[in-house]
């Protein structure tokens, strides 16, 4: 038997072994396990703000985690957010007042992602220019501090670890960790065989998960670049992904019209959020603070709210006149923001 044949046989045997190991611990699923849990209340949220300012489709938004109040305040208030639109701008909003705090003109208007650094000092954007551009918001005039240029495909998502490191996912099927001081890639994460569409950092920032057009989600060690686990189940592109706040599970959203929860320790899908009446792809998702509620944006202009434990739909956010392209819940959990191709952002609670 040739070397290639032997390896193909070994690969098949390993896949069978992995499936058997998953079955061996698959003694139940999340919905059955949660049968004794009281259902989540019917969630009816109101639009509190409609943020008007973009002139074209909004593709991404991200909440700041920076506590912007002076030290005199006893409550952390998380109010700033950044949004990106194909009108060629990033807008920084004060969500409480609804006012625009800053506007960052982009060299390339084909933007697909934006991110706020935890410090509040920097924002990043990227898209069909294949680059991730980082801007300093705190200089008297907003300055471009770095153009991260090494991906050979579009930039689908970026997330800051700090003011000196950023993670990106790309249509070139790789993810990368960049050093913002040198502008170079420190680590490249290779394993997906389809465009990487989204990523989510673990709360402890030692790992991250990515979702791709190969319909797989992967867990990676940030420092050594190793792909640690691969999650199957979706039958189309994974457009959205998020760590559960407990850090032991992830939620994914896909063009196959479902969201799924994968438990990292059981190494498998434990529940699928789907409805026969729903035949639009999932574009985005965000979790409430306890993880109980999943806010999933769909191509059908709605954002559906799912009970993450029981798998039931418990509400819907209707109000956009086009696809919901992005959703986000700030760190204090006080609201959910939806952004849409209708050019508006809405804040709900």
């Amino acid at each position, binding site marked *: 038997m040739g070397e290639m044949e032997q390896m193909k046989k070994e690969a098949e045997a390993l896949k069978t072994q992995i499936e058997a190991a998953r079955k061996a611990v698959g003694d139940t699923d999340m919905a059955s396990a949660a049968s004794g849990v009281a259902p989540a209340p019917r969630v009816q949220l109101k639009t509190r703000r409609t943020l008007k300012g973009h002139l074209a489709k909004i593709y991404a938004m991200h909440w700041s985690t920076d506590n912007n109040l002076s030290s005199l*305040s006893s409550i952390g208030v998380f109010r700033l957010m950044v949004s990106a639109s194909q009108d060629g701008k990033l807008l920084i909003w004060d969500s409480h007042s609804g006012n625009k705090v800053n506007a960052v003109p982009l060299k390339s208007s084909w933007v697909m992602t934006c991110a706020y650094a935890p410090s509040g000092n920097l924002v990043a954007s990227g898209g069909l220019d294949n680059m991730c551009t980082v801007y300093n918001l705190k200089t008297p005039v907003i300055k471009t501090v770095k153009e991260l240029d090494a991906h050979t495909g579009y930039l689908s998502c970026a997330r800051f670890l700090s003011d000196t490191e950023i993670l990106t996912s790309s249509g070139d099927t790789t993810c990368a960790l960049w050093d913002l001081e040198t502008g170079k890639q420190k680590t490249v994460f290779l394993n997906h065989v389809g465009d990487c569409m989204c990523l989510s950092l673990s709360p402890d920032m030692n790992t991250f998960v990515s979702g791709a057009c190969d319909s797989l989600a992967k867990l990676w060690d940030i420092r050594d670049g190793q792909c*640690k686990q691969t999650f199957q189940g979706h039958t189309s592109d994974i457009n959205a992904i998020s760590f559960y706040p407990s850090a*032991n599970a992830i939620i994914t959203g896909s063009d196959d019209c479902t969201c799924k929860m994968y438990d990292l320790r059981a190494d498998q899908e434990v529940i699928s959020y789907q409805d026969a009446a729903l035949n639009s792809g999932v574009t985005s998702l965000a979790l409430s603070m306890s993880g109980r509620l999943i806010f999933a944006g769909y191509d059908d202009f709605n954002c559906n709210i799912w009970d993450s434990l029981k798998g039931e739909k418990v509400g819907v956010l209707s109000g956009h006149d086009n696809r919901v392209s992005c959703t986000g819940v700030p760190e204090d959990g006080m609201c959910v923001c939806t952004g849409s191709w209708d050019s508006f952002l809405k804040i709900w609670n």
Partner: protein
Amino acid sequence: MSGSSNIVAMKKIVQQLRFEANINRVKVSQAAAELQQFCIQNALQDPLLTGVSSSTNPFRTQKAFSCSCDISAGEKTKKTTAMMCN
């Protein structure tokens, strides 16, 4: 040569599968129970789940209003500010 690069690629696939096959897996029932517990323990701190009362809702007013009040100077000032600006 494409033949040897195929073999290199295949070796990497096998290596990755070996790595993934060797991880420890926890029973779904145990993982699910712990996840539920986390959810329930944090439920009361989850404003979107419990509902945000009007008095503490920073987004309460629908319209943006222009106001020079400094709402960063502390809890007490924030309450009077809210009263003044409503």
